[in-house]
């Protein structure tokens, strides 16, 4: 187990190195710089700024300082927000995104799985068709339209939930739902097809032949076997939620990390780009590792470790 984990963490570091390198190349390849704005600076000042921030150094030297910074998680100050460290920006905005993301993931998984199971149990009956209509709608409607519709219904028309900002739990409900819709629908479809497959397996017949009730057969025997495809979707789900959060954060006026990430790119705010990229990558790589560990927990046939004595 420890050996496996060390190996996986080794791979994570390797992936991070590649991601950081590619980000650096792309960052440098894109025209413009942090000080190129509409109100042009005088050439003398710009030259001084470039010198001060090390942009005049040879490219490989810049790359090495950048690498060292990345791995010590010290990204220096932002170029745009004067006097703010990158770590400060992340520390300030990430909690919003984290709460929103976790809520959305929770909604997507719990309702997606439920909808998929209901559809499978009701296979080719009314409940199945209803669930799949909802799922197709969920996949087809983009999150920003969903957000606007939700805002109109719940905040303006019914006036039961706040329309924007992030101050209390009630504020998080609408953005979390909007963010969760697409992955929810996707999970429902995944769950439905894998559940239908599992319900036709022989061991389900065995379980029924023991006299177990429909409910026990569905939830104790079928669900655990059918949920694997959903678990493997968790990695991509984290990405969808993270990148999706940018749009949703904008619409609901939430000062989250998603918007910082995108704004930093358009601003050529090199240190913030680097910081957020590394941060998101670490998050993603670890969530994939967790998914792989979960896999082994759910299905004993999938071995993440090779214990002695097992064949």
């Amino acid at each position, binding site marked *: 187990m420890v050996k496996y984990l060390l190996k996986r963490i080794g791979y994570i570091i390797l992936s991070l190195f590649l991601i950081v390198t590619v980000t650096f190349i792309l960052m440098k390849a894109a025209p413009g710089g942090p000080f190129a704005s509409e109100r042009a600076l005088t050439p003398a000042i710009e030259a001084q700024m470039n010198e001060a921030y090390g942009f005049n150094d040879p490219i490989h030297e810049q790359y090495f300082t950048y690498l060292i910074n990345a791995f010590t998680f010290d990204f220096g100050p932002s170029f745009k927000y004067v006097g703010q460290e990158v770590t400060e920006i992340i520390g300030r905005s990430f909690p919003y995104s984290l709460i929103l993301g976790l809520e959305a993931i929770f909604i997507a998984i719990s309702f997606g799985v439920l909808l998929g199971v209901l559809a499978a149990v009701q296979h080719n009956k009314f409940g199945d068709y209803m669930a799949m209509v909802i799922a197709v709608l969920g996949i087809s409607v983009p999150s920003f339209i969903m957000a606007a519709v939700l805002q109109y219904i719940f905040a303006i028309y019914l006036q039961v939930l706040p329309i924007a900002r992030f101050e209390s739990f009630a504020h998080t409900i609408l953005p979390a739902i909007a963010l969760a819709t697409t992955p929810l629908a996707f999970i429902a479809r995944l769950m439905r097809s894998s559940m239908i497959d599992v319900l036709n*397996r*022989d*061991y389900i*017949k*065995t*379980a*029924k*032949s*023991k*006299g*177990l*009730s*429909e409910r*026990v057969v569905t939830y*104790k*025997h079928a669900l*655990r*076997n059918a949920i694997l495809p959903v678990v493997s979707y968790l990695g991509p789900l984290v990405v969808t939620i993270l990148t999706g959060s940018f749009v949703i954060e904008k619409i609901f006026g939430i000062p989250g990390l998603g918007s910082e990430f995108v704004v930093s790119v358009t601003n050529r705010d090199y240190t913030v780009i680097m910081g957020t990229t590394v941060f998101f990558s670490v998050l993603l790589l670890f969530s994939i590792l967790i998914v792989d560990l979960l896999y082994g927990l*759910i*299905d*004993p*046939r999938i071995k993440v470790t090779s214990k002695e004595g*097992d*064949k």
Partner: protein
Amino acid sequence: MSKLLEVKNLSVSFDTYGAEVKAVRDVSFQLNKKETLAIVGESGSGKSVTAQSVMRLVPTPPGKFVGGEIRYNEENLLQKTEKQMESIRGKEISMIFQDPMTSLNPTMTIGKQIAEGLIKHQNMSKKEAHLRGIQLLKLVGIPTPEVRIKQYPHQYSGGMRQRAMIAIALSCNPKILIADEPTTALDVTIQAQILELMRQIQEETGTAIILITHDLGVVANTASRVAVMYGGKIVETGTVDEIFYEPKHPYTWGLLGSMPKLDTEQEELQVIPGSPPDLAEPPKGCPFVARCPYAMNVCSDYMPAYTSVSSTHEAACWLIDARAPKVDIPESAIVEGKDIYVI
């Protein structure tokens, strides 16, 4: 001989796109206490559907019970609610399936899978069920059951999984054990072990067994009575000796003829030419008419009635009718004691 289970005029159909497949048509048989009834027939003859009907495990829809009765304990199982059936399945009647590789839940330990039935039907605690599980595994011949009970199906070999299946099926001391081709997916040596195990368990517990198979060798070794099925119907029933030594139905002759003989000089195995009838549109008369070398005009229009040959032996064939020409059993279907390989 006291009756334990009686199936009367059972008909089961499946609704498929555009057609109703009549998988089981007017099947009647009975099972006595402590006996082994073998149901033989080729693929698609309705054996498994008949067996699964007894447990009411036929998925409805697409399946539906068109008519008939399944009487157990003076009650018709077809009229029971799903809840009532749950207290019969696993407790009174249990089942072993064909493929042990796929009939155990891969994400649950063997111990849990055995315990489930015990907890449900015998109100055992988890601990009691665990201990009983160890006993059961020992009974079916699994070494070091204390270790094995905590393992998952993928850690078992094929034969051991079938043993575990038998342990699950036997856990609540059922009156009837339905074994749906229990040895088909196993290799021959394991087959023999499993059959021996079933025979042993029957002696110890007195469970009646319905054995579904297409292997006449298995029948000869384990069954006391045989029902031969073809095209959704039972065409001949009798004791093992009657079916093997005095078969009356040409289909039974064909089956016996296609059994490999030990002393034969023939290079090729014998087959019954043709293929079984399409049960979406079953023939009006005898289902075997298209493949029967002795078919007469009457056969294609009228289903022959069951004619008793002895008190335990009956067959549905026009050849038994007094007006039919006399036909002798073909030489290929004559079975001598030495032809049946004893396992």
